[in-house]
């Protein structure tokens, strides 16, 4: 109840014309950086920081946070329309979003994405409002072994029920893990797999790889199919937006499950990208029978989007309450916080209530503003797909390269885009799944260093992963997710074998 009063105070701070204008500006700027691949929320926010020096901290954080929400929304747009994830966390949205848009239902796909994103964010904010003090204490219980268990869970949830052949999945996963080890290793402090090339010193950027694999790879496939943009001369009807909104209650279980995953991964250090992958994997396993995932199933859009946004909002909590940002954007905002003279930490909630609750209240309003703004843009974005390929194709190439260059201002990344474009094309033709590669690149190095840290702490005993209630439970769930589907398949295989035998 005390939190509720504080929240009302926060609304009083946030609901001024000046702050609402800042929110709208922030969300719109965020949409733009979100739509451009490479120029993601972290870059956008750090570009804005110098402008906030003159503002008071509440206005500054409202502007930056709104930009973050806008970027999260914008990231899904290009994933769905062009198969180019604008943000790392919207990679999983491409799996079903793009096929749905390609089959002529781009309005439906976008609306589903935005609405479930809005709901996810709302759940995240409610959790922050109600559980801020508890969640901060809970996050303290995560040591190296617990971190590893969380990443392991994300891997298992995604891989346990892979639809591609297990060997192909393993190849793709291993390639991703290999790529994630390039550069300087935190635990040993030594350089690995750089082959003396300066360009590889900071590792292979995950975003650059994704732009190549999905953006350029897809383009190559389109060109091979005969230079016409696949799909889509669909009728754009604003009423479709409302029809899709009415469709949402059907996916209520997916939404609840995905928000829970998102909240969990946002508070623990998994982050939005891991959350969206994990949630997609779980949806694939537990959804009612129907069309195959990866062919434009609505749950395949709803699940990653809901989780992405609830994780994105919840990631603010460890940043404010512990000083540990669980996403790159949160890290940049934390830098801003320090420049404005605030110290993130357990005491921020009691020493700066105006700031914290003003921010939380603004999250409610800004996400509401965000959903309305993006829904208004749906018809325009959907219409983009009607532009002939001869015009849009070169534009996509340009956007991909500009985006890849923006990631680190490095020209060698442009070569990586080309190389991974070819890799993406070949993978597609040979039916190797791309998702495990991407997942391994996102979580690989984090999982590796937390595993290494756990091993140092335990003097090399694997027992550390079952040394307490928390880590033991997460590991058990993870192993169950990995083993049970395979066992079921095996039993089924035995059964069918038996019946064949008896028939013979």
């Amino acid at each position: 109840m005390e939190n509720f009063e504080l929240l009302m105070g926060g609304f009083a701070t946030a609901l001024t014309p000046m702050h609402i204008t800042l929110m709208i500006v922030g969300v719109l700027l965020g949409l733009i950086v979100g739509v451009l691949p490479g120029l993601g929320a972290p870059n956008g926010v750090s570009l804005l920081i110098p402008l906030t020096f003159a503002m008071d901290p509440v206005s500054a954080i409202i502007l930056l946070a709104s930009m973050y929400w806008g970027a999260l929304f914008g990231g899904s747009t290009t994933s769905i329309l062009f198969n180019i994830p604008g943000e790392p966390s919207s990679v999983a949205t491409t799996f079903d979003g793009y096929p749905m848009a390609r089959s002529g239902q781009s309005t439906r796909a976008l609306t589903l994405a935005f609405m479930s994103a809005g709901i996810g964010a709302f759940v995240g904010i409610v959790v922050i409002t109600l559980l801020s003090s508890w969640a901060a204490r809970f996050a303290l219980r995560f040591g190296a072994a617990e971190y590893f268990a969380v990443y392991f869970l994300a891997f298992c949830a995604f891989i346990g029920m892979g639809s591609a052949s297990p060997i192909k999945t393993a190849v793709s996963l291993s390639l991703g893990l290999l790529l994630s080890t390039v550069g300087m290793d935190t635990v040993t402090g030594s350089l690995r797999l750089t082959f003396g090339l300066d360009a590889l010193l900071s590792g292979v950027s995950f975003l650059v790889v994704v732009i190549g694999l999905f953006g350029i790879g897809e383009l190559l496939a389109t060109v091979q199919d005969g230079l016409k943009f696949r799909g889509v001369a669909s009728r754009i009807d604003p009423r479709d937006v409302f029809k899709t909104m009415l469709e949402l209650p059907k996916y209520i279980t997916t939404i609840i499950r995905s928000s829970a995953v998102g909240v969990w991964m946002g508070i623990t250090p998994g982050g939005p990208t891991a959350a969206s992958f994990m949630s997609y994997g779980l949806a694939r396993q537990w959804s009612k029978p129907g069309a195959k995932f990866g062919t434009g199933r609505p749950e395949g859009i709803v699940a990653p989007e809901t989780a992405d946004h609830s994780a994105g909002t919840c990631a603010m909590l460890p940043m404010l309450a512990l000083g540990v940002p669980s996403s790159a954007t949160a890290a940049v905002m934390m830098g801003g916080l320090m420049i404005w003279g605030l110290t993130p930490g357990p005491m921020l909630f009691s020493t700066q209530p105006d700031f914290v609750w003003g921010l939380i209240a603004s999250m409610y309003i800004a996400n509401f503003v965000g959903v309305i703004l993006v829904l208004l843009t749906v018809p325009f974005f959907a219409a983009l797909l009607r532009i002939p390929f001869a015009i849009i194709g070169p534009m996509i190439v340009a956007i991909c390269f500009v985006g890849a260059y923006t990631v680190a201002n490095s020209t060698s990344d442009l070569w990586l885009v080309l190389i991974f474009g070819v890799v993406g094309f070949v993978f597609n033709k040979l039916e190797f799944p791309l998702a495990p590669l991407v997942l391994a690149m996102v979580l690989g190095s984090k999982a590796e260093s937390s595993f290494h840290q756990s091993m140092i702490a335990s003097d090399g005993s694997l027992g550390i992963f079952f040394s307490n209630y928390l880590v033991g439970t997460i590991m058990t769930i993870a192993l169950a997710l990995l083993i049970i589907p395979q066992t079921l398949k095996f039993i089924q295989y035995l059964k069918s074998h038996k019946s064949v035998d008896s028939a013979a």
Partner: protein
Amino acid sequence: MKVKALSIGMTLAAATMLAGQALAFEPTRPVEFVVASGPGGGTDNFARTIQSIITKHKLMDQSMVVLNKGGGSGAEAFLYARKNEGDPNKLYFGTNNAYLLPHVAKLAYSMEDLRPVAALAFDEFLIWVKGDSEYTTPAALIEAAKAKPNGVTFAGSQSKDTDETLVALIEQTTGTKFKYLPFNGGGEVGVQLAGGHVAANVNNPNENIGQWQAGAVKPLCVFSDKPMAKGEPVYDGKGWGDIPTCASSGVNIPSYKMPRTVWTAAGTPDEAVTYYSDVLKKVSETPEWAEYIKKTSQTGDFLAGQPLQDFITTSEKSTVGVFEAEGWLVK
């Protein structure tokens, strides 16, 4: 004879330049602030604070762009300096990593590729333990480690960087053996300690203050020759000034500090270096800078020219000694 005359002439020229600002160098393009850390890190805050002060007081006519190149513990930024030899429109922001990294990792740059401009602040190091820890003095922590070698865990940022170097120095000084667990950054290290997953850390004040305010961690001693500046009490009536020095409480390391440094690429003209060190000197005299120093509990000494060069030489020599004893040096 000729050489001497020339050097006198150059000294004179430099002196005139110092006196008459009108003749001095001016950047011709927006100045790139190349930061040897990711966004949000300590070095990043250092560079962005300077950027905000220069903007506010209009100390430079050109605008500034911050560029994060934190790859390879910051080596990426200094490699970029090597590629941009002689470019006077780029400044590089780092710590002592600029001159220490090439000793522990095989990198394609050396100190020859950089010119020091100034050091503006020195970050302190402290021994921290959990708020309710059984160790109340550094001596107790050392005793515990002596009783059980490799049984007491220190967490720190990165590997073979300032934190692990300091822990190695403690080990060498006191004849103990700790377990060292590297994490990604100071904030993470602070939370690991607050959560009780490790026994101690050697964080900078700024990295642990949030947890100290809440009483989740407490400082045992500071690696400085004199106690830190007195300020507001932080927790339980105690403030930064009340922390004893480590040398006075049983860990005989008189001083261990990390300089916050600014560099240009080798081959940058002297007048450009002078120009930037003048601008930075002015930055260090503003009230906003004093506020930053106070907020982050650093020591605000300004070093440039020969004193800076001397500091770097001494610091490099003593640290390389520690590296050698630990077997970290790369040839």
